[in-house]
């Protein structure tokens, strides 16, 4: 009997331990762990796609005594996305880290991966706390890997804020256990009734998670932490770690709190989302460094995700599916696109020795594949067709207007325009041939003279990821909606 759910968590753990114990072989062990973990996650995805929701009672005790792992369409889709993105990041990381940091990167990376898979598959509220902490600790450690004081400071702050969030979440879990006598998500959902307990637990758990999901105005820790981390880590933080916290909010909303809270909470989330879209996009537009721009863009993209809550709260059952599909599509597209953008930024940084947007011209023109990847990522971030984001925004706009909540539309439109502004600020570098940058041949010459050579594989990875975000998720997203069909085990 193969328990794919458990394997998706156990394999990266084993890989991490292997990389700890044999530091000389860390990359090989790490890559093997990455491939095996991804296979397990894909198996979970395939099984769910074939029509069964998966649930595994670890230890055989069953809820409420034991802990279960579970996968339905929502978690399976995010699991598959996270694992594919993580696999891409792993391949890229082979080339990225030097001999000094390899032995540190790989085990922490696999632990982070285990935490992600554990989080997407968790069916127990306290277990979620443990996965959250594993995620937060490994993420902060990875983010500080360069050892530069700014990086260490930003990630220490990230760690502390994350702890504040998880402590708040944990108090919510404690009260929920006290009130309902269970920690299992499904059982708790069945037992929870509207009332002060439900609202308090909601405020504590979701409030803690919003801090981790970096929803405006709780986003302040994100840009420095994500911008200072090594590129593969930034990619994972922005594309996956923040997404995991959002997933949890959505999961709790759909399974637990949606039925016991009124529209006010959802409206608040939507309003904060709008703030995030506008403020994040604006700051991204003003950013002078590419990685900071990408980090602020994450703040904005998280905002879009939260705009779906007020619509979900009001939607009749028939439209819920559509909205869930759209928010899922948005999360997936952003996962691929943002990871691709950060990885591209890492290559430019290696080639140019910096990531100042204004001076990136020569390196961006010397690496056309990277320029293309940034362009495709930009298409997805702005929400231009064909990309998953475009479809998601279409659903968002038409549902907002259709349900009479038209006031969400201007924020979306404004965010889109600001996003185009910041994306094309970067892309203009790919065309510029001003006196400052010299001619194309100078640019190439400069690159050839530079000691850093950028491998073809490292260039191919972000291109592939952004292509998935644009072409696959933009044109072939229908199966996502099939995944979300109700499928009881």
């Amino acid at each position, binding site marked *: 009997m193969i328990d794919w759910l458990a394997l998706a968590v156990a394999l990266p753990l084993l890989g991490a331990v292997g990389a700890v114990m044999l530091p000389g072989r860390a990359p090989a062990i790490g890559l093997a762990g990455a491939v095996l973990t991804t296979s397990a996650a894909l198996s979970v995805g395939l099984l769910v796609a074939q029509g069964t929701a998966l649930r595994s009672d670890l230890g055989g005790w069953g809820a409420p005594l034991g802990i279960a792992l579970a996968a339905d369409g929502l978690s399976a889709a995010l699991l598959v996305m996270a694992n594919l993105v993580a696999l891409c990041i792993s391949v890229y990381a082979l080339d990225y880290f030097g001999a000094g940091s390899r032995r540190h990167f790989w085990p922490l990376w696999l632990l982070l991966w285990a935490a992600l898979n554990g989080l997407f598959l968790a069916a127990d509220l306290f277990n979620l706390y443990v996965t959250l*902490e594993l995620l937060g*600790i490994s993420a902060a450690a990875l983010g500080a890997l360069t050892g530069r004081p700014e990086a*260490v400071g930003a990630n220490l702050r990230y*760690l*502390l804020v994350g702890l504040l969030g998880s402590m708040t979440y944990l*108090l919510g879990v404690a009260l929920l256990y006290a009130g309902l006598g269970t*920690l299992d998500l499904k059982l708790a959902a069945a037992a929870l009734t509207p009332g002060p307990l439900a609202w308090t637990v909601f405020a504590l758990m979701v409030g803690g998670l919003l801090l981790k999901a970096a929803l405006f105005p709780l986003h302040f820790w994100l840009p420095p932490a994500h911008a200072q981390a090594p590129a593969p880590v930034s990619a994972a933080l922005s594309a996956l770690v923040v997404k995991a916290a959002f997933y949890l909010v959505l999961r709790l909303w759909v399974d637990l709190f949606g039925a016991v809270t009124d529209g006010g909470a959802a409206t608040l989330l939507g309003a904060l989302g709008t703030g995030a879209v506008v403020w994040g996009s604006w700051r991204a537009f003003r950013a002078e460094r590419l990685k900071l721009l990408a980090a602020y863009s994450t703040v904005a993209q998280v905002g879009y995700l939260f705009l779906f809550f007020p619509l979900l709260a009001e939607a009749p059952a028939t439209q819920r599916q559509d909205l869930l599909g759209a928010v899922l599509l948005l999360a997936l597209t952003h996962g691929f696109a943002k990871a691709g953008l950060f990885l591209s930024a890492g290559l430019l940084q290696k080639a140019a020795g910096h990531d100042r947007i204004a001076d990136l011209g020569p390196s961006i023109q010397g690496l056309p594949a990277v320029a293309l990847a940034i362009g495709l990522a930009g298409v997805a971030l702005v929400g231009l067709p064909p990309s998953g984001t475009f479809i998601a925004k279409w659903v968002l706009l038409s549902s907002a207007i259709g349900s009479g909540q038209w006031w969400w539309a201007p924020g979306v439109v404004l965010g889109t325009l600001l996003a185009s502004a910041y994306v094309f600020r970067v892309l203009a570098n790919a065309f510029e041939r001003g006196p400052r940058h010299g001619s194309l041949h100078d640019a190439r010459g400069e690159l050839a003279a530079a000691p850093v050579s950028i491998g073809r594989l490292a260039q191919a990875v972000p291109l592939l990821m952004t292509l998935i975000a644009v072409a696959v998720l933009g044109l072939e997203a229908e199966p996502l909606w099939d995944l979300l069909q109700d499928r009881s085990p």
Partner: protein
Amino acid sequence: MPAGRTPVLITQLIYGLGGLVLFLIGIWSFLVHEPLLRKLIALNVMGAGVFHVLIAVAYRGLETIPDPVPHALVLTGIVVAVSATALALTLGLRLGHGDD
């Protein structure tokens, strides 16, 4: 409420409300104090508060075996908190904040 529960309830309330107070003091300290080390201590105070609440929930009187589940949660929570504290202290040390 059965008469026998009153003393249990009082003990539970002392621990539980005490836990809440600790939790709030922790948040207050986290928000108000700039130094990262103090924020870290504040977080540990918050954690202690949550653990107190769990202990209060587990208590069922002196004659009855307490609920083992919250106790296990507290143990797990402590190890997690220690781990996070260790990492945070080291990061702070590298920043030069550790010598205060």
